[in-house]
């Protein structure tokens, strides 16, 4: 009885006190007489920093080995085993972070936000695969990226999609990349990490939605090989464009193509360009007309896209925490269950001025307005490029891997009947 009365009084007193203080030493530290030793607060250390250098080392060595296997050895087997290693190391051992795809956002954030110090590992994971691609093609995709590796494992029955569908779906990564950069540059969110389909598999632990997304991609991947790489991966856009100008690249045949067509269906990713049968399918006149059409079309599309993007800046910015808070201050939720949202509660407890929140929010909105123009213009350009690619016919003599889309997986190599005696000089 006495105890509960005391408790009631205590509670009353402390409730009053709590309203204007936190973390105050209300009760002095006791002086123990029984020789009691106060235990240490255990603080486990994070992963040792030197191990980040190990990751970087493994990345560089893997890239070198796979490039050598692809360009010099032309060995599908070797590439396969390297991709299994990547799956084990970067996937299951490192549990997916840091990865080259996500590092786009770290680099973007570091470029736009000077107070963000980018870790060296993130910078190397961004730059090294691109540098290797500039010399050897997308060898990173072939045997270093764990995303590619896991999708490669499940592609049992790859179907041909046809060039048109491939081209149209191929636009999605550009949009994804644009959005990811916009959200990273404004410090809003890392969308690539948020919608990472496989990270839950690496950790054997994920939210329900993540599992569904990852499982769905793998299921689709049985019939459409590497769906994430081809139709989602934002880093793939950068790799694609770098690879187009690569110094060396995998070739299907080690010598001259004899047009035997044996490799025609060997690529699970529809990445082999098939020869066009006529040498000059179009007159100069039609060519010229098409070119004029495109030169007018692309700026129009960019303008239209930019305008649309700028109009959409408010919904786009809606997920930004600062904008969200400002909105909630303006329109407090009137939910019976909850007096105020946690955001408002936190805002009140931090003693910030309303005006400051509004100023920050309008600053973010302005960034999104400009970002909306750029993003929209970029998407317009991509669609223009898509149309241009569809209507311009290009001359092509042999069966060759499309340098942009080819993942350098080396499958097609085994289909070519021409074999050179192993010449490793």
């Amino acid at each position: 009885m006495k105890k509960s009365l005391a408790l009631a009084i205590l509670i009353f007193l402390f409730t009053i006190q709590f309203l204007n203080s936190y973390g105050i030493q209300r009760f002095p530290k006791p002086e123990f007489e029984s020789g009691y030793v106060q235990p240490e607060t255990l603080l486990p250390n994070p992963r040792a920093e030197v191990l980040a250098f190990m990751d970087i080392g493994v990345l560089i060595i893997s890239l070198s080995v796979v490039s050598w296997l692809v360009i010099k050895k032309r060995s599908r087997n070797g590439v396969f085993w390297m991709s299994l290693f990547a799956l084990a190391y970067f996937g299951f051992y490192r549990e997916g972070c840091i990865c080259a795809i996500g590092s786009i956002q770290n680099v973007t954030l570091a470029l736009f936000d000077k107070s963000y110090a980018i870790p060296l590992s993130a910078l190397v994971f961004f730059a090294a695969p691109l540098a290797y691609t500039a010399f050897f093609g997308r060898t990173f995709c072939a045997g270093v990226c764990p995303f590619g590796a896991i999708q490669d494992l499940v592609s049992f029955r790859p179907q041909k999609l046809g060039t048109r569908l491939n081209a149209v779906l191929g636009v999605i990564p550009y949009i994804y990349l644009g959005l990811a950069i916009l959200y990273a540059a404004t410090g809003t969110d890392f969308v690539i990490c948020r919608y990472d389909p496989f990270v839950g598999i690496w950790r054997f632990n994920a939210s329900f939605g993540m599992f569904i997304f990852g499982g769905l991609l793998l299921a689709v991947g049985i019939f459409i090989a590497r769906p994430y790489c081809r139709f989602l991966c934002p880093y793939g856009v950068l790799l694609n464009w770098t690879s187009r100008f690569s110094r060396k690249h995998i070739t299907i045949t080690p010598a001259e193509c004899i047009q035997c067509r044996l490799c025609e269906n060997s690529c699970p990713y529809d990445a082999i360009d098939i020869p066009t049968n006529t040498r000059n399918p179009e007159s100069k006149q039609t060519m010229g007309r098409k070119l004029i059409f495109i030169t007018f079309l692309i700026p129009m599309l960019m303008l239209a896209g930019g305008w649309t993007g700028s109009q959409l800046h408010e919904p786009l910015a809606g997920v930004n925490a600062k904008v969200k808070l400002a909105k909630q201050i303006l329109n407090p939720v009137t939910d019976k269950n909850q007096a105020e949202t946690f955001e408002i509660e936190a805002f009140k407890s931090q003693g910030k001025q309303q005006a400051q929140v509004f100023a920050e929010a309008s600053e973010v909105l302005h960034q999104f307005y400009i970002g909306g123009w750029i993003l929209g213009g970029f998407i317009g350009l991509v669609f223009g490029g898509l149309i241009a690619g569809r209507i311009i016919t290009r001359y092509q003599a042999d069966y060759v891997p499309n340098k942009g889309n080819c993942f350098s997986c080396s499958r097609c190599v085994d289909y070519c009947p021409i074999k050179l005696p192993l010449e490793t000089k």
Partner: protein
Amino acid sequence: MQNRREFLNLLCRGTILTGLAATTGLLVYRSAQSGNCQLGSSCANCGKSGKCNLPQALLYKETVWQLDPTKCIQCGRCAENCVMTPSAVKVTHVYAMCGYCDLCGGYLKPDTKNISTAAENQLCPTSAIKRKFVEEPFYQYTIDEPLCIGCAKCVKGCGAFGNGSLQLQVRHDRCVNCNECAIARNCPADAFKRVPASKPYLLQGIEAKNEEKG
């Protein structure tokens, strides 16, 4: 024809590589420059840089996620939003701050009618806090870490009625250091930040001790 194409290729490749090198170089350079704080001196010459919590203080060191207990409002989202189940955020008991109270605001529900340590009187939904008698009138509270789900109920209780010695922290034996912490983007109080991996905790009332130890 062939030559022209090769030249174009070379040109484009050169442009891409230059761009890449410029970006990387800029970030490296900037990081070397921006290493200073309000004190105005460069971190490279600062004697405190080993203890400093600003990420820019440590050039190119790896960072980890941590939450600032002074900002936290104990909303409970830490328990739900972490990519790990149960959450990598758990309560950490700073014994140095604890009053060893009999009526622990973090241990017992505030409206407890009769004082007993029965589970229904405990705040913690998983009974993760263990109470042990030390000497009259002091009790020691320890956390059974595997049981804690990071719901912050005890933190709220201890902060309201006690010394605030129970604090949420990202426990780095469980955290997988996501590139972007899944809780950080949902924390209403903006309590999460990247901190240098060499100084991975942001506890109240324990800093002094750490500094003594060097």
